[in-house]
C-alpha cells in the first residue's frame, strides 16, 4: 500500500484565470511581491499495488486533460 499524489496544473501558456484572481487578491491585500500565482489540483489516494505507469494511465484517461493540463506524480 502506498500513498499516491497527483498534482494537476494548467499548462504554461493556458490562461489560468483563477491564478490571476488569487494573485490580484493577494496583491490587493498588500502582498505586492506575489506574482505568477497558479491554481491547480491535488488528488491523493491509496494504491494497493503502487505502479507509476498505471497512475500515468489514470492521468491520461481521467485525472488530467492533457490538451490543457500537465501533471506530476508522487508515489510513496
Amino acid at each position, binding site marked *: 500500500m502506498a500513498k499516491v499524489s497527483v498534482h494537476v496544473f*494548467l499548462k504554461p501558456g493556458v*490562461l489560468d*484565470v483563477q491564478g490571476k484572481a488569487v494573485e490580484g487578491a493577494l496583491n490587493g491585500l498588500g502582498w505586492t511581491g506575489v506574482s505568477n500565482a497558479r491554481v491547480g489540483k491535488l488528488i491523493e489516494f491509496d494504491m494497493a499495488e503502487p505502479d507509476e505507469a498505471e497512475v500515468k494511465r489514470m492521468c491520461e*484517461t*481521467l*485525472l488530467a486533460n492533457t*490538451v490543457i493540463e500537465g501533471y506530476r506524480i508522487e508515489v510513496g
Partner: protein
Amino acid sequence: MSAAVIVFPGSNCDRDCKVAVERSTGERVEMVWHGETELPKGLDLIVLPGGFSYGDYLRCGAMAAQSPIMQAVKTAADDGVAVVGICNGFQILCEAGMLPGALLRNAGLKYVCKPITLQVANGQTRFTSGYQGRREVVMTQGNGDGNYFADAQTLARLEGEGQVVFRYVDNPNGSVADIAGIQNARGNVLGMMPHPDRAFEAELGSADGAVLFQSVLNAA
C-alpha cells in the same frame, strides 16, 4: 427522424432538449440513461444536453465522457449519426476526444447567462443549412466554463477545414477566435456553448435554435 437525448447524472437541460427537438421537428425523442450500453436503433440525432454532469467535479464533462453510453455514442458517430453537444454536452464531447480542444473557465471568471448573437461561420453544414445564408442568429448562453481553447495547430486546422460553425459577435468568455461552436472533420458532430434548446420558439425570445434541429432532420 429519430432522436435521443442522453441523460447524465446532473444533466439539467435534458427535458428542454427533448421538448425542443420534438416541437422543432415533430418527431419523438427518446431519453437514454448514461449507464446504458446501447442506443435505440435507427437514430438520426443524438443530443448531449447541458447541465452539470457529475457536479462538474474534476473538470466539466470529464466523468460523463467515461460513462458507459459514450462508447455507443462514439460508435454511432463513426457510423455517421449526427451528434449535437450543447454546453455541458460540448464539454463532454471534447473530454471524450470526439471534438478537438477544451473548455476553460470563462476569462471573466463569472457565470455568463444571457441571450447572445452568433455569427453563422459555416452555413453549409448539416446543422446550419436551414439558416439559408443568414449571417447572424440569436440563442441563449449559460455557462461558467465556456472559454474554448485549442492550440495554434488545431485552430489552424479548424479554420482551414471550415469546422468553426458559430462565432460570438461579442465574445462573452474569452474563447479563442470567438469560437462558440465547432464540428468534427466529418461534419456530423457539433459542439456548441450557446443553447439552441432555449431558443426554439418566439415566446422564448428566439426561434433560431429550432432551425438547427430542423436542419439535421432535413439532412437525415
